[in-house]
């Protein structure tokens, strides 16, 4: 999109842009995103706290940064370098994501850095690497227009990626059949050719069942399997036990739908599968993804227009943010941090000894649990709000409360920043330039529209300044995002996510380049695997047998229902950016619990949702668009109405993603709904009265997408 800027340099509006990806389309959050820029809640000066019980007060940059640096030194000198951690995020431009990884390994020399993609895309990333040897969507989205069967699993596209809907509808306009796998009848499931409303936590059984039927019917692409893959025999054996009848029993669906979907997919010449958090947010998340990939591989649906596979990103830079080294096990270019060759190459780029680069650290949720145990004593946080977004929220808070020092960089005072010892004011997307990589693996660029307000400074300047004050200034002498990008190009060279042929100018000329782009003459790689070779040394794609198992917390007599959490269209992630924007608050002022009519509640009833972690009372949204054994709560709001007061922090042993999508609960009629707390604001700022009025309204919305406009 374009931003409208007045003569004084102030952004005042938006104009849709006909970019090759979104083709002018925006979601409601995108339309109003510019309103963040001059928002009265913006952090415009550094804040520090004198003692744990004191309030945050304004401070100079010098005072705030000196405090940060002296605390880093004290903690690392006293407890060791790994006692200070960095927790970052995937909504950052890729330059900043790269910089954070380098900052942790070079300036802090701590192994403890991880990012909020750990709550988002790591199951997909882990499974992609296992099967393909590379972590990227296989096809450009325009391939959807040429497919015959579009299978979308665990993705509420209409609410979580509205601009993708045009591709889904575009595929159907051209004759594709749409299959949606989701416990809820979402906006795209509503009119799908087949909607499979399975129980949360049973995805792997369903996909094994599809492969069972495909194998039984002789629809396996034997030539592709024999010549291009390894491991089929184990998978074939594994899926034999997943008869449609057994799958129907596990998943709580009709056995005929297993047959129908399997035949539709198996007989298609060109089919594409997409998935998102619905199948990934599980202790079996990586395996769920592998069970989808097994289906793709067994039928040879790769490397052609209309035949392929992709995972749907959850943040603007969900792909780029996980490629260049802010992940606990990774160096730039999707390199493995424990790979000696990768370490030697990156050490050369950074001008450090290979031995000085720390090894693999721990994952985000594990880091917070280490904070609670006193293993991590200090934390720099940026681009995240774990007091809203992490599971079993009270345990997360205990981790943060055990810290000796916590600095958070943000542009609004998030619930997490509000409890920090130092808060440093950063920039919003419009106040800086940088690249992002979209769900297709296409690198695009944001341009700068305006200057940051007050004393807010761009995040990369803040990080470089801390590094300089720590004595690592020579490694962080960056004067612009372009200079960081130029180093990133070199660092990524030869890695899978090779950006070395990408320049800012080439992105402007092309509407984005698909990596790998190994040199400046290279046109980019819109579609992977056209040569039917994986990124593994032997060039073969790898099958992985998957056995379905129960979620970490199966239902029982005491907790007989399944609680699943997710998003709503008016809000984004932890809501720090959207719970402050009037139009979005008006559309969806508060969370609710979605329940099936058979559970006996009326619309708006105060319904208490109780799990082993806690209980919250929400207004009921009674709808037939959800299974009767499942309830849904959206997660964007803070305590006391946070869905994550209820969720379980069980982690996938491979990807370490939390099981946000299923835990056991019971519900009962409560006394009155718990009220929404307004988002924190910096000292001196007043909360917006109109928003306060909206969030005081205890009613549920009229639909999962919000209130209708005639309902006030």
């Amino acid at each position, binding site marked *: 999109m374009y931003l409208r800027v007045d003569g004084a340099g102030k952004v005042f*509006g*938006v104009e*849709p842009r006909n970019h090759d990806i*979104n083709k*002018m*389309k*925006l*979601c*409601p959050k*995108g*339309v*109003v995103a510019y309103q963040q820029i001059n928002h009265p809640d913006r952090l415009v000066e550094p804040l520090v706290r004198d003692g744990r019980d004191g309030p945050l007060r304004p401070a100079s940059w010098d005072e705030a940064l000196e405090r940060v640096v002296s605390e880093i030194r004290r903690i690392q000198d006293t407890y060791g370098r790994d006692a200070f951690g960095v927790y970052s995020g995937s909504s950052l431009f890729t330059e900043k994501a790269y910089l954070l990884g380098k900052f942790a390994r070079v300036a802090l020399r701590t192994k403890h850095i991880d990012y909020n993609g750990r709550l988002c895309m790591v199951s997909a990333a882990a499974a992609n690497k296992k099967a393909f040897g590379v972590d990227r969507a296989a096809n450009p989205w325009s391939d959807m227009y040429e497919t015959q069967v579009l299978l979308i699993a665990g993705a509420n596209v*209409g*609410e979580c990626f*509205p*601009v*993708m*809907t*045009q591709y889904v*509808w*575009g595929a159907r*306009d*051209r004759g594709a059949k749409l299959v949606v796998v989701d416990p809820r*009848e*979402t*906006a*795209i499931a*509503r*009119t799908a050719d087949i909607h499979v409303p399975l129980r949360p936590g049973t995805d792997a059984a369903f996909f094994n069942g599809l492969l069972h039927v495909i194998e039984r019917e002789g629809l396996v692409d034997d030539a592709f399997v024999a010549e291009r893959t390894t491991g089929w025999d184990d998978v074939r054996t594994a899926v034999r036990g997943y008869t449609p009848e057994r799958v129907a029993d596990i998943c709580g669906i009709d056995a005929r739908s297993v047959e129908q979907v399997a035949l539709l997919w198996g007989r298609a010449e060109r089919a594409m599968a997409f998935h998102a958090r619905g199948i990934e947010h599980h202790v079996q998340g990586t395996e769920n993804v592998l069970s989808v990939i097994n289906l793709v591989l067994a039928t040879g649906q790769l490397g052609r227009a209309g035949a392929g596979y992709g995972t749907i990103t959850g943040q603007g830079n969900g792909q780029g943010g996980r490629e260049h080294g802010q992940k606990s096990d990774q160096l730039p270019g999707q390199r493995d941090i424990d790979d000696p060759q990768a370490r030697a190459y990156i050490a050369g780029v950074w001008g450090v000894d290979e031995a000085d680069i720390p090894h693999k650290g721990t994952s985000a949720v594990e880091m917070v649990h280490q904070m609670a145990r006193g293993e991590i004593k200090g934390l720099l946080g940026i681009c995240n709000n774990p007091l809203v977004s992490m599971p079993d929220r009270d345990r997360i808070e205990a981790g943060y409360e055990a810290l000796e020092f916590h600095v958070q960089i943000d542009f609004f005072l998030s619930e997490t920043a509000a409890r920090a010892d130092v808060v440093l004011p950063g920039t919003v997307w419009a106040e800086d330039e940088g690249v992002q990589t979209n769900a297709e693996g296409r690198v695009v660029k944001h341009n700068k529209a305006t200057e940051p307000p007050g004393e807010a400074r761009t995040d990369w300047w803040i990080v470089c300044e801390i590094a300089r004050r720590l004595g690592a200034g020579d490694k962080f002498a960056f004067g612009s995002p372009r200079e960081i990008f130029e180093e990133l190009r070199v660092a990524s060279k030869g890695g899978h996510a090779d950006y070395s042929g990408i320049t800012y100018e080439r992105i402007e000329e092309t509407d984005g380049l698909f990596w790998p782009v190994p040199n400046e003459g290279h046109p980019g790689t819109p579609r992977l695997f056209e040569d039917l070779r994986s990124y593994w040394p032997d060039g073969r794609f790898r099958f992985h047998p998957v056995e379905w198992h129960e979620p970490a917390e199966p239902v029982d007599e005491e907790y007989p229902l399944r609680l699943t959490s997710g998003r709503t*269209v*008016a809000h984004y992630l932890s809501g720090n950016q959207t719970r402050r924007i009037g*139009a979005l608050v008006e*559309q969806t002022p508060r969370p609710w619990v979605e329940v099936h*009519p058979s559970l006996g509640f009326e*619309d708006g009833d105060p319904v208490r949702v109780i799990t082993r972690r806690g209980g919250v009372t929400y207004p009921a949204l*009674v*709808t*037939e*668009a959800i299974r009767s054994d499942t309830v849904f709560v959206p997660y964007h709001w803070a305590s006391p109405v946070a869905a994550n007061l209820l969720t379980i922090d069980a982690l996938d042993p491979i990807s370490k993603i939390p099981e946000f999508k299923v835990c056991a609960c019971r519900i009962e009629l409560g006394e009155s709904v718990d009220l929404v707390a307004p988002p924190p604001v910096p000292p001196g700022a007043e909360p917006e009265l109109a928003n306060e009025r909206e969030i005081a309204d205890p009613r549920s919305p*009229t*639909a*999962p*997408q*919000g209130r*209708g*406009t*005639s309902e006030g």
Partner: protein
Amino acid sequence: MMQRTMFIDPGRCIGCQACVAACRECDSHRGRSMIHLDYIDGPLTVASMPTVCMHCEDPVAPCAEVCPADAILVTADGVVQEASKERCIGCANCVHACPFGVPKIDYEEKLQYKCNLCYDRTSVGLAPMCASVCPTGSIFYGTLEELLLARPGAAATDIVVFGEQEVRTGVAIVTPVDAHLRSVPGGMA
């Protein structure tokens, strides 16, 4: 028949309200959305649909016909304008006359407000804000030929039937491909 206009396709709507947010950005009425976005099947489904002014052609704009203050202008290109602030008396005749429930009255200002097809944009060749951003094509702006190019096999009508009464509208409605309908029913059976 249909010129360059809006085509409304309720079947594609995902209820995201990008149109509502975008409508507030239109310079002729910044901060206030003229789109009605209704979740129409409450406890049964998540179905939704947007309603914009249909810019009635025949009979010509019932809202304008009943306006006692002659406040509602129909421009030569068939766009039914919002009631002129200088003339509108806030009587709500137009609200009662409209077969689609489009105009609303702001009772504090005692003024009518309604969609004017983003006249500040469409009169200079830009698409309306809502149609520009609608991520599903539920609100499409263009010619019928452009619509069919984007959606092979689609069909559209500009006649809505309310019992005995037919209304021909400036804004068209996309109909199910296999329905072979010339018009869509708008009123109670």
